[in-house]
């Protein structure tokens, strides 16, 4: 295997493991803040993977939107819904063996499907820059979803503001 391949393997597995471990921490940690930051780890590792897969626009989007936006938001939520005092918020979870069993079966099924992919999947590498293509596509083929999304975001904005404001007792 050439040096390049080895390097690729190393990068992939590094990212994969960090993603796995941090998602494990999200699933099982009891401390609220620790879960939040482990989610951060997951997001970053996935951003790396996107980069690995030459989806550079998505690498950037992932970091900007997910990390910059959603994670910050979640942390805000945690801070707002728990008293500041006890940072180590208890994050109990009712884990039961059945749930674990179901999840494992699900994992096994998904792995089985992954391994028995039909041969017709062609392995071809796209080497054109992604962003330019996405820009064209956004405004040509998938113009409709783009417009709908804009409307959706507006609605969410208004909705979120409305839901979160404090009741004005007349």
């Amino acid at each position, binding site marked *: 295997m050439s040096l390049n391949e080895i390097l690729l393997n190393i990068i992939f597995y590094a990212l994969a493991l960090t993603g796995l471990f941090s998602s494990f921490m999200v699933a099982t940690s009891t401390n609220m803040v620790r879960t939040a930051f482990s989610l951060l780890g997951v997001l970053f590792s996935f951003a790396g993977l996107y980069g690995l897969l030459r989806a550079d*626009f998505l690498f950037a989007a992932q970091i900007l939107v997910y990390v910059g936006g959603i994670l910050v938001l979640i942390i805000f939520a945690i801070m707002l819904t728990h008293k500041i005092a006890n940072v180590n918020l208890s994050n109990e979870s009712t884990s039961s063996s059945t749930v674990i069993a179901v999840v494992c079966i699900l994992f096994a099924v998904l792995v089985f499907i992954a391994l028995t992919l039909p041969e017709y999947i062609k392995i071809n590498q796209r080497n054109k820059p992604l962003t330019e293509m996405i820009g064209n596509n956004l405004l040509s083929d998938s113009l409709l979803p783009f417009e709908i999304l804009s409307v959706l975001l507006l609605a969410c904005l208004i909705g979120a503001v409305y839901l*979160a404001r404090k009741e004005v007792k007349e």
Partner: protein
Amino acid sequence: MLWFTKYPVENLLILSSAVFCFGIYTIVTRKNAVSILMGVELVLNSVNLNFITFSQFVDNAGISGNMVAIFVIVLAAAEASVALAIILGIYQNFGRVDVDKLTSLRN
């Protein structure tokens, strides 16, 4: 041994399935609304990964997968904002965010 370079799709799929299962697990077991939200984020990310791997390795134009990924990201953002707004609303009304206690909408 199935190295990434030889079998990139399989590896990636296994990874995304794992993260997917973790997401499911968090959703089902967590009692805190916010952590459920985090589980949802995990699931969405694993799905995104799938999309992008397939867009990279299957789709000859290599664009539709990514497009969907973008839209998923944007939607995740919108969904997260609304979910958190709801959670804050609940918190203000009930004082706590524990999912098991929120049963006022029972039947």
